[in-house]
């Protein structure tokens, strides 16, 4: 574990050095993420200028859900962005060979190789919206609820990571899975709003099948109502661990099917 952290630190430092090599590209990336976020927030303001409540949630509560959902998304984005490249080209071009000839876990290696600073945009927006909306969101704040709420963050992040690991691992069998990651990952849009605004099918889907609702709505629901921590937080923990275990299985099975590329 200590060794893993050391390697992670070293690879991350290399990454930051690389960013300094390509400053213009980095700045453009950061700005485009900010624009993306601004559009999302503007959308909420527009909705609430027309209607005072959404599925029983006040404006501040919706903003809080939106803000919170950006944090696990941002953390996953910060730490595991290289999985996109696995899906898009690392496997297809046979560049995955490199990771298999090194004495560290290939999944860890590929993840540790990228530290995606763009994600700081999401984290800043997320924290900003939480701070802005929290005073008027009618939260039920107790030491227990705060502890459980904060505790849920790494597990929410794990759901993102698990989904990216399993979809990117499909590339080992079908060569390229970038668009599949994109499609599945795109469903995180559902995490930004209360699931009660969707139909039953979609609600069940984003809770149990591609469980992005667990990364935003449910933990916040607990903080607002103070009810049902067993599902709202416990469910997040159990389902995220389950999904992560499953994604590791998919990954490891995928490795055996890896075919490299001609050279």
């Amino acid at each position, binding site marked *: 574990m200590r*060794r893993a952290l*050391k*390697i992670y630190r*070293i*690879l991350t430092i*290399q990454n930051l*050095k*690389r960013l300094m*090599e*390509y400053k213009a590209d980095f700045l453009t990336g950061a700005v485009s993420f900010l624009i993306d976020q601004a559009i999302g927030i503007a959308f909420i303001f527009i909705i609430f200028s027309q209607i005072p409540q959404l599925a029983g949630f006040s404006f501040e509560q919706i903003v809080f859900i939106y803000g919170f959902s950006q944090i696990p998304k941002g953390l996953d984005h910060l730490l595991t962005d290289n999985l996109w490249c696995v899906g898009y080209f690392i496997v297809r071009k*046979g*560049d995955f*060979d*490199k990771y*298999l*000839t*090194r*004495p*560290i*876990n290939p999944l860890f290696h590929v993840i540790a190789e990228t530290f995606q600073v763009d994600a700081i945009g999401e984290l800043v927006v997320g924290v900003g919206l939480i701070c802005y909306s929290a005073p008027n969101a009618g939260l039920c704040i107790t030491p227990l609820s705060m502890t459980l709420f904060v505790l849920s963050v790494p597990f929410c992040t794990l759901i993102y990571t698990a989904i990216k690991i399993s979809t990117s691992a499909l590339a080992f069998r079908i060569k390229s899975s970038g668009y599949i990651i994109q499609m599945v990952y795109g469903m995180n849009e559902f995490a930004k709003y209360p699931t009660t605004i969707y139909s039953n099918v979609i609600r069940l889907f984003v809770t149990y099948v591609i469980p992005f609702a667990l990364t935003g709505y449910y933990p916040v629901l607990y903080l607002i109502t103070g009810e049902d921590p067993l599902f709202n937080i416990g469910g997040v923990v159990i389902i995220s661990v389950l999904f992560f275990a499953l994604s590791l299985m998919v990954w490891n099975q995928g490795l*055996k099917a*890896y*075919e*490299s590329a*001609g*050279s």
Partner: protein
Amino acid sequence: MIYAENLRKEFTKIVKEPGLKGSFKALFHPHKEIVVAADNISFHVPKGEVLGFIGPNGAGKSTVIKMLTGILTPTRGQCWINGKIPQNDRKNYVREIGVVFGQRTQLWWDLPLLETYSVLKEIYEVSDKKYRERMSFLNEVLELDDFIHSPVRTLSLGQRMRADIAASMLHSPKVLFLDEPTIGLDVVVKDNIRRAIMKINQEEHTTVILTTHDISDIELLCDRIVMIDKGKNVYDGSLRKLKQNYGQMRELSFETDTSEHLTPEKFYKGLNLSGEDLTVKNDKNIFNVRFNSEAIPVGDMLNYTLSITKVKDISVKDADIEEIIRRLYKEGADEIE
């Protein structure tokens, strides 16, 4: 040291008809075909040996190397290296090997070369002291000093290849896999790399498996060669034995007077030989005769030539290894078909 036993690797290929329409058709009704990239490959390499692993393009060399290095899982068969099965004990196994794929790089593309080595140092847990010793040794044999502070993307191919070999050697591996380490390089760099491989092998008794299309690589470096073609073993033995078995080819070159009207047919008919045993080519009055000295001794050949024509200049030489290998590739292909 290295045992490969009946290694077989199958790939599933989806056969598509040409064009976009074919691609769509394959999407819904894939016509799958099994391609055998390596079949029944067995060989053994003792410690400290340099093995030349050769064969024409697409013979399955890289597939075998990738199975030996643990990148691919064999469909059937097994390999043991240092008593380990790469696929079962990958993490511990790869500590003891170094791998260079000439067509790819394992260096960090955007960073100065030295940074790659400092990252690899941590990944392979090389101590500071050992790292310094290693870097000075590698600097000496591969002359990295000139470009060690340059970003990898700015290196020339020759520099990159030397840097890649150094990267694979940093943790003092017991076995070194070099897949086409001299591909696309000029003579001077090739020579530099060969000397480095030789030195590493001599000083550290590193076992080396080397694939190459460059005959000089084989002649200068390899104690033994294993040749495969179409996924199968074709030859396994020393280069000397190969030359003895297949090296009976000689080449006779001579120039006749312009007044002579000699034609190649005169050789074929007069000696009653053809095909692999005899080929005659001429450019006006300059003749080139390749013949098998087992079918016709060199003396007889000379006598015959001198009896049918007046020569101005004549020479006989051994066929080079390239010629032998060309013949062997051809025979290997015939055997399988």
